């Protein structure tokens, strides 16, 4: 078949709702777009361990500490599921890690904000994992099989993350006035970055149309953002805390919440590397990679030694 015929057959499969598997023919652009999306997603899971890991040693109780450790471990697992999926597209994992460490690859802007108080851990679970669920539930129906399957795995675990975060906030909200104020402060700091996390507005997202046509994305960034807002407003009301947007109000005509203007200049500044913690995050990943070098070397030496010993010796 010619390239044109292959392309037409591919588009027909997509249009028919079929799942694309690793060995199937796919246009180069589909492959590169997926590698970009999936590696960014995987990097986000890995970098996402850092702001939360910051509070493991200072969790307020043993129970909260165990939960946080389990959650951070899950994030590592999620990163590995998605790296594994990305590798089926013919890219090497070490290449992807290099791109993260060199600063070439992007990851979610949200993880470049600092976790200043314990309440931030609650808000991250509630908002950041909440927004991630909204996004990932849709990605679980993506046209690329390995990506969709990784998302199904992740979604099963993500609800625990959101619920434990919300419970932290609910607990603080009915605590002392200082605890409630701490929860409100965390909400005020994380609300807008959480909305930005769902990506640039549709009018400013050049990849959206193509990705929607290929069913890699099933909903636009603005649709996902609206769904996240609609879900979160009643949850804030239920614990007596407010979202920091005076324009946030229910619109009976659209049956959605209207909301205020997002500061996209802040979003792009963070994406371009000028958020509060961009340098710190990358440095932490580089340090982890360097500090793990001796483990990798030892494991390789051990495997090589055993391989030699298991070789039959010449008679």
């Amino acid at each position, binding site marked *: 078949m010619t390239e044109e015929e292959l392309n037409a057959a591919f588009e027909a499969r997509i249009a028919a709702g079929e799942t694309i598997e690793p*060995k199937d023919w796919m246009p180069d652009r589909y492959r590169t777009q997926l590698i970009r999306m999936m590696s960014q997603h995987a990097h986000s899971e890995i970098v996402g361990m850092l702001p939360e890991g910051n509070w493991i040693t200072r969790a307020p109780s043993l129970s909260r500490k165990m939960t946080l450790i389990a959650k951070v471990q899950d994030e590592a*697992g999620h990163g590995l599921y998605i790296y594994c999926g990305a*590798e089926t597209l013919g890219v*090497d994992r070490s290449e992807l890690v290099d791109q993260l460490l060199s600063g070439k690859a992007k990851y979610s802007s949200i993880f470049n904000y600092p976790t200043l108080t314990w309440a931030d851990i609650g808000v991250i679970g509630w908002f950041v994992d909440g927004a991630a669920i909204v996004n990932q539930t849709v990605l679980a129906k993506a046209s690329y099989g390995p990506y969709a399957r990784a998302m199904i795995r992740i979604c099963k675990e993500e609800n625990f993350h959101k619920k434990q975060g919300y419970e932290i906030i609910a607990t603080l909200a009915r605590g002392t006035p200082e605890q409630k104020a701490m929860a409100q402060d965390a909400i005020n700091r994380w609300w807008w970055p959480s909305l930005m996390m769902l990506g640039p507005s549709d009018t400013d997202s050049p990849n959206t149309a193509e990705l929607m046509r290929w069913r890699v994305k099933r909903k636009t960034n603005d649709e996902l953002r609206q769904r996240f807002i609609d879900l979160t407003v009643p949850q804030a009301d239920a614990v007596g805390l407010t979202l920091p947007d005076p324009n946030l109000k229910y619109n009976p005509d659209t049956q959605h919440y209207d909301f205020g203007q997002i500061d996209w200049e802040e979003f792009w500044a963070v994406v371009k590397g000028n958020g509060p913690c961009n340098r710190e995050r990358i440095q932490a990943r580089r340090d982890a990679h360097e500090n793990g070098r001796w483990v990798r*070397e030892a494991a*390789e*030496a051990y495997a090589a030694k*055993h391989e030699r010993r298991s070789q039959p010796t010449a008679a």
Partner: protein
Amino acid sequence: MAEARDATGQAPPIDLPGTAGNGAAAQGESQWPLWEVFTQKTGGEPHEHAGSVHAADPEMALQNARDVYARRGGVVSLWVVPSIEITASQSEDAGPLFDPGADKVYRHPQFYKIPRGLKGF
């Protein structure tokens, strides 16, 4: 079947198990071989492909597979197989390869006649 790295139809650019570290990369920088992971869920089900892990040797592959794919329970058995050892069918051959031969009517029970009136055959 497996989401092995030869997805592009090219030879997988991975070292064979046991040769890790022999490549051009500096010590500790080479990529450990890729292993496909199969998990069996509780209840006598078959082993099913779950994903893949990188590991220097089979024991580490099993341990990593446990940590990544069986961390949350629901698994009673794990297999790890070097990805490079898997031979998979090509999707462009799927048509003729999996043609059920529906024209061979003698493969179906409806082809055979039994005495009229016989119940509970």
